[in-house]
């Protein structure tokens, strides 16, 4: 076995961040939080289009399953990031569950589009953000059951 070579590297970032001036960490954090929050309205405005893209992909899924699976995975991963950034936890969890599902379909080669349809319908409901936490919890419980029913671990090599 080839041995590993270890060596020290100069950390230029350490020297740069400690230069005189700059911002108090508390101020930098507050400024960053304020700037990110200001973007929330713009991000939220993009949600309906993101959900519509997902629905369109899953509705037309029979045409080219592999390419569609990849596209659904990418869109749901993007939706997860968007929902998580907006603090929409239930929507983020549903999108993450769809990522798990499509990744599992890709790994095992067994595709169950009906499970993806259930996820997209749940995502459309959750994206409206009008339901109570109890209703959101019930939707997520249903999705977990769908995931457990249709999602299989890939066979170990």
């Amino acid at each position, binding site marked *: 076995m080839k*041995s590993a070579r270890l060596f020290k590297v100069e*950390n230029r*970032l350490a020297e*740069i961040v400690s230069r*005189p001036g*700059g911002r108090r960490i508390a101020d930098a954090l507050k400024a960053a939080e304020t700037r*990110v929050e200001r973007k929330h309205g713009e991000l939220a405005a993009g949600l309906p289009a993101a959900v519509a893209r997902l629905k369109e992909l899953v509705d037309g899924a029979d045409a080219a399953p592999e390419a569609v699976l990849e596209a659904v995975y990418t869109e749901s991963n993007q939706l997860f990031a968007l929902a998580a950034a907006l603090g929409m936890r239930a929507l983020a969890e549903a999108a993450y569950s769809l990522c798990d599902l499509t990744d599992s379909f890709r790994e095992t080669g067994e595709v169950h589009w009906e499970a993806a349809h259930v996820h997209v319908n749940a995502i459309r409901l959750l994206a409206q953000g009008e339901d109570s936490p109890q209703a959101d919890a019930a939707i997520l419980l249903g999705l977990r059951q769908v995931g457990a029913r249709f999602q299989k671990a890939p066979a170990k090599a």
Partner: protein
Amino acid sequence: MAALPFSGDERINLASAEVVLADGHAEGLELLSEMFAGFGMMKPNRCSSAAEIRDIVALREVNLFVIDSALSDTDGYEFIRWLRRSGVRPNSVAPVILLTGHTRQSDIFKGRDCGANFVVRKPAAPLVMLQRIMWVSRETRQFVESAGYVGPDRRFRMLGPPPGEKGRRADDLSAQVGAATTPNLDQDDIDALFAPKKVSL
């Protein structure tokens, strides 16, 4: 605001830092840019693809990379793996923070082995990101080059090689403590070590 894991009165100066922010999705890149502008960064290098980052790597000295796992032309793991093996110093050994959303089952090992200093799972809140920046700026881990891995030493604590193994590194010490080679100190000797003594300055 959540409690800070460091003093709020400490200062951070990112004004002159060359930072690459990369995300294949426009919204993610916009959020990152806003966050780093809040941290005081003046020179953002915004990229959506690995090709754009490679152009910057060839031209400038980068102090920090923040790379999303989803880039528009490849994945972030592949890019970081390329960077670590590129030989473009000092960029190839610069700190890298990897951002991940959902991680595919097939990408779990790629994430571990690509050579990033830290992996941050989305949503990356400003507090978490700032904490990671402070951590990488205080990074003291050595760099490792081996056939299967190039990047910062993945051992955060020096616990020695696994039991029964010799270890592959020259500085690996055995976890087994050998037998004493000199007599034990008696209590008077130990007390003398702690006894106050006059010193002349």
